């Protein structure tokens, strides 16, 4: 695999080197002898870990001995983890002429009361100083109330909850607390891209299992993508420390059913495995679907960390607040990580979030509750997005939840061979679409392990938590698509 992959990437990077303004590139240029290694991961953000790790560490040692000014500095734990798909594709967002349906951030406004609560909180002197490290008291109290209701069990705000810097921070704290060298962690593909590097940074081995399309031909719903139970069972062994579950799922939008969760739960119990359940899109579930928390299945509470996000709940991704909920005997270890990494999260944001939660907690029986109203708003955007894509001749996979939609672009037969032949098709397609159609998305192979990229390289991911004018602009592009491609 290795040398073939390297040359593929080398070729593909030549053309885009100019555009690749990555800071990683300039850093690695320092290790002069191995230019091609540096280009490979600056441009693509696609991981070929084994090769990259070997090559890079060798290159660092070689170059270092050559220069002699400084010895190798960075630790093994971050070898090969420097590249990132977002570095390249979020740069695109800066160009205002591009209709950006790529990175998952809303361009709709957060609800007014959320902003008001923040203004109120920031006006209180004491709330501009440190708060309780593991979570601001009023916030953990509010979270415990909301989730007690959802889970149907008592949740202690001080011992069963940790507030983190985004759900990202919760994933990191969980993995650092509970995963180490010698462990295996099962990751379902496609996956939110940070799972893999975080598992590797903890010294553990990711074990991938893909969602497979089970239907033939027509109906394209996220529900058609399923795990093969026998294949999944095969992935579990005595080294399996945890499985990472993401439901509703990014990028597919799949909402795992009770039966599907039971299959996973049975295996976790049988093999005494932990479950890291990323449920950031928990409220964004569309008609006919129900979000089920795997932690509520029998035997699962004691082995599950459930992760949530203020950014996704209240459309405030820039607040970077998330939380981990679970049994004390697991959460206490996450708290230890937290107190040794960043100690405490920003106070005024936590207070404002607490107040927002109280407002919605009180109306959890009311359809106006933001948890439900946002979901309704997004469902119509989802439907609109799907229609636009279908009219343009594309095959979208209708998500049952979340705010992403993946689309099979192979049906367009856009011939891209000859252009950067070594790149996966979806990367080439997105780049072509950005330059020629002024519309951005994210290539799906960014969310796959090395074995599965081929399976997913005809898909790209659109984000539809966008205001009407953005979707209008996308509509114009999609309606005119066929006219230009013909």
């Amino acid at each position: 695999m290795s040398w073939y992959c390297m040359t593929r990437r080398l070729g593909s990077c030549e053309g885009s080197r100019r555009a690749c303004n990555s800071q990683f590139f300039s850093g690695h240029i320092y290790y002069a002898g191995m230019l091609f290694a540096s280009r490979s991961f600056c441009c693509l953000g696609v991981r070929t870990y084994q090769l990259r790790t070997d090559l890079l560490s060798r290159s660092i040692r070689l170059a270092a001995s050559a220069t002699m000014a400084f010895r190798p500095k960075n630790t093994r734990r971050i070898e090969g983890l420097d590249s990132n798909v977002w570095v390249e594709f979020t740069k695109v967002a800066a160009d205002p002429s591009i209709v950006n349906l790529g990175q998952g951030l809303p361009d709709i406004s957060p609800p007014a009361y959320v902003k008001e609560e923040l203004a109120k909180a920031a006006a209180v002197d004491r709330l501009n100083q440190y708060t309780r490290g593991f979570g601001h008291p009023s916030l953990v109290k509010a979270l415990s109330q909301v989730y007690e209701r959802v889970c149907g069990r008592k949740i202690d705000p001080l011992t069963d909850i940790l507030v983190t810097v985004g759900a990202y921070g919760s994933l990191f704290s969980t993995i650092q607390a509970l995963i180490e060298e010698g462990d295996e962690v099962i990751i379902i593909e496609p996956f939110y891209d940070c799972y893999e590097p975080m598992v590797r940074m903890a010294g553990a081995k990711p074990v991938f299992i893909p969602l497979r399309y089970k239907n033939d031909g027509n109906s394209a719903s996220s529900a058609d993508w399923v795990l093969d139970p026998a294949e999944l069972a095969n992935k579990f062994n005595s080294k399996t420390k945890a499985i990472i579950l993401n439901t509703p799922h990014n990028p597919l939008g799949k909402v795992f059913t009770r039966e599907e969760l039971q299959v996973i739960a049975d295996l976790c119990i049988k093999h005494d495995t932990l479950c890291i359940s990323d449920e950031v899109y928990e409220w964004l579930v569309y008609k006919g679907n129900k979000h089920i928390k795997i932690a509520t299945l029998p035997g699962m509470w004691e082995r599950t960390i459930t992760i949530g996000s203020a950014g996704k709940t209240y459309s405030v991704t820039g607040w970077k607040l998330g939380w981990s909920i679970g049994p004390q005997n697991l959460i206490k270890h996450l708290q230890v990580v937290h107190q040794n990494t960043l100690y405490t999260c920003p106070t005024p944001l936590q207070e404002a979030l607490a107040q927002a939660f109280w407002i919605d907690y009180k109306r959890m029986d009311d359809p106006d509750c933001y948890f439900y109203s946002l979901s309704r708003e997004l469902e119509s955007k989802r439907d609109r997005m799907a229609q636009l894509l279908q009219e343009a001749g594309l095959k979208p996979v209708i998500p049952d939840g979340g705010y992403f939609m993946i689309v099979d672009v192979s049906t367009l037969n856009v011939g891209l061979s000859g252009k950067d032949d070594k790149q996966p098709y979806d990367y080439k397609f997105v780049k072509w679409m950005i330059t020629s159609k002024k519309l951005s998305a994210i290539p799906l192979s960014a969310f796959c392990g090395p074995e599965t990229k081929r399976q997913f390289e005809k898909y790209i991911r659109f984000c539809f938590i966008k205001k009407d004018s953005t979707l209008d602009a996308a509509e114009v592009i999609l309606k005119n698509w066929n006219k230009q491609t013909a």
Partner: protein
Amino acid sequence: MSRPVQARRLEGIDKNIWVEFVKLAATYSTVNLGQGFPDFPPPGFLKEAFLRALSEENHMLHQYTRAFGHPPLVKILAQFFGKLLGRELDPMTNVMVTVGAYQALFCCFQAFIGEGDEVIIIEPFFDCYEPMVKMAGGTTVFVPLRPKAPKDGKLMSSADWQLDPAELASKFSERTKAIVLNSPNNPLGKVFSRGELELIAELCVKHDVLCFSDEVYEWLVYDGKEHIRIATLQGMWDRTVVIGSAGKTFSATGWKVGWTMGPNRLLQHLRTVHQNSAYHCATLAQEAVAQGFQRELMLYGKPDSYFVQLPEELQKKRDWLVQSLDAVGMKPIIPEGTYFLVADISKFRSSVPDVPDSDEPYDSRFAKWMVKNKGLAAIPLSAFYSEAHKNNYNHFIRFCFAKEEATLKAANDILQKWKQEKTSP
């Protein structure tokens, strides 16, 4: 589960002094001079900037910004500190924003320290350095600041606590990967002199060692002293990560905005850690801090500058607390910088009897007794020492004086009353 569920990297780092003492202060204290945060508000211009940012019609400041630092913030930091460091800083490659200086430190240890690496830590030290080295699998090597007796009749100054050059040199070995420098120093308030920094710098260059320079109290220097940035010394820029904090700079510790600055060859690895741990920092506070720095850039050196006014204010408070403590017989060590001061409580030992064979250092028991019985919260100096050295200086406690006048007066009342109780039959 038969084996422990938690990872081995957590071994020995689960205890944390703040968890315990913050709880005690919350429960018992009427006057809290313990944990280091101001009880006065951030400056008006900063709060206004925050309000403006959150209510902007273009509400995109509530969404993700650039992961390695909000562009307006890294740009102004590069500009501002470029001047102070005497070199042109690229905001994209020489600056990275973190969730407080705490996370900046974390990124440094994770990026550069692994098994087999030694890290030199100067005692007393901000307590997180030690567990962070451990969590990264490194080995801590401690070197103490040693107090020299003050001139007769005078109070000790933080300047009287010094490194022994030969002792320091002996701590450097082939395995030394980094030294952590904290100047101005928490808890003592020491502001390292140029000579002291040159000593450290020479050793770093000689042994090819990195320097993590925790300069969060850079603006809080008194008596006309100068905060010297070690990164400006010969041979140091290329091996130093400079760490700063908006919390300390702008009296807004709850905003958790910090930054790292340094050469790209080092920052690139901090970026890797950051993008795999926290990734983005909250946008709004970064926007407000950027505006704060814009203002300070324009007012730099002028009387209206917050960086001039804050140390002036705090120096007065320092002097007030020094007087207050001296008057009752607690011997303060006058800090050259930071908003902490350490005082010798030997004269108050009678209030808290010794417990022979106690595991807990005396000053820790003293501080706990004091908060429970006198309502005055402070932190024992032993909290800032390694396990092996906790009893070396166990009759000192640390006070934070970044407090309103009323708070300091209330502290004084408690101390006065306590003294009277001791002396009356």
